[in-house]
């Protein structure tokens, strides 16, 4: 019964596996031709199906994953050059250019903003939490956060 409702199960699995391959190997050099070959599709057919399901071509999706991972690493305050190579870019200029085009600001400015945010969190954590939740959790009475109440 399930199979009747789900005729394209193998096709879906191959496209999903290709997407997960990108998710897991974004930091390496990925040849999209190889992914299409592994998924037993012609390159054209593979790109068309991938885009139909995920709204992006595999290449666009790879770039989006790399930028998203870069954002995560920058939020953990890693240096821009380390982040660039960690997520699979081979040149700092292409990374910075793509990052700025997608995020709207340069990676170094984003990092500076995150450093500032982390300082604020460390100084006054309670300002990031709606008051009712902080009170219900007993955090307003916690002496460790006295500065936040000042």
């Amino acid at each position, binding site marked *: 019964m*399930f199979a009747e*409702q789900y005729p394209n*199960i193998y096709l*879906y699995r191959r496209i999903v596996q290709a997407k997960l391959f990108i998710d897991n190997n974004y930091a390496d050099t990925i040849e999209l031709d190889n992914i299409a070959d592994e998924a037993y599709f012609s390159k054209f057919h593979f790109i068309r199906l991938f885009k*139909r*399901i995920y709204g992006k071509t595999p290449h666009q999706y790879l770039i989006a994953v790399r930028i998203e991972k870069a954002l995560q690493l920058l939020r953990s305050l890693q240096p821009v050059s380390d982040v660039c190579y960690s997520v699979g870019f081979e040149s700092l200029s292409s990374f910075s250019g793509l990052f700025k085009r997608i995020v709207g600001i340069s990676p170094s400015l984003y990092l500076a903003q995150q450093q500032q945010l982390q300082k604020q969190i460390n100084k006054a954590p309670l300002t990031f*939490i709606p008051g009712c939740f902080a009170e219900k959790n007993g955090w307003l009475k916690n002496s460790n956060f006295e500065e936040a109440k000042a």
Partner: protein
Amino acid sequence: MTHVSIHVLNQDSAFDFYTNKLGFKVITDVPMGEDGRWLTVCPPDQPGFEIILSPISKSMYSSETAEMLKELVSKGTFGVGLFTSKDIFATYEELKAKGVEFTKPPRKEFYGTEAIFKDDSGNWFSLAQLG
């Protein structure tokens, strides 16, 4: 509406589930000492909608209520949300491949195609493709 709260049994495990399996983004992660952390996440394309991954702490509830609540959450009592997907079968295959537990695979119903999955605590969600 800006915030909703989901009770989780373990914030570290919930962090992994919601970010690495569902692909949510972390909005705020503020350590609050021994009382856990203020941890909010959002679906990737909904940055204005914060989901608080809230531990069942004894500062919020009496010991008896906290234990009762933990038991109810872990045995899958609470349905806490609905996801809609443009392609439910692709989403189903992806989440399943990432180890998400489904209690109902995609099935055509009179209102659309629906699947049900659980988070790492036991809270369940409907995944639907409407129409």
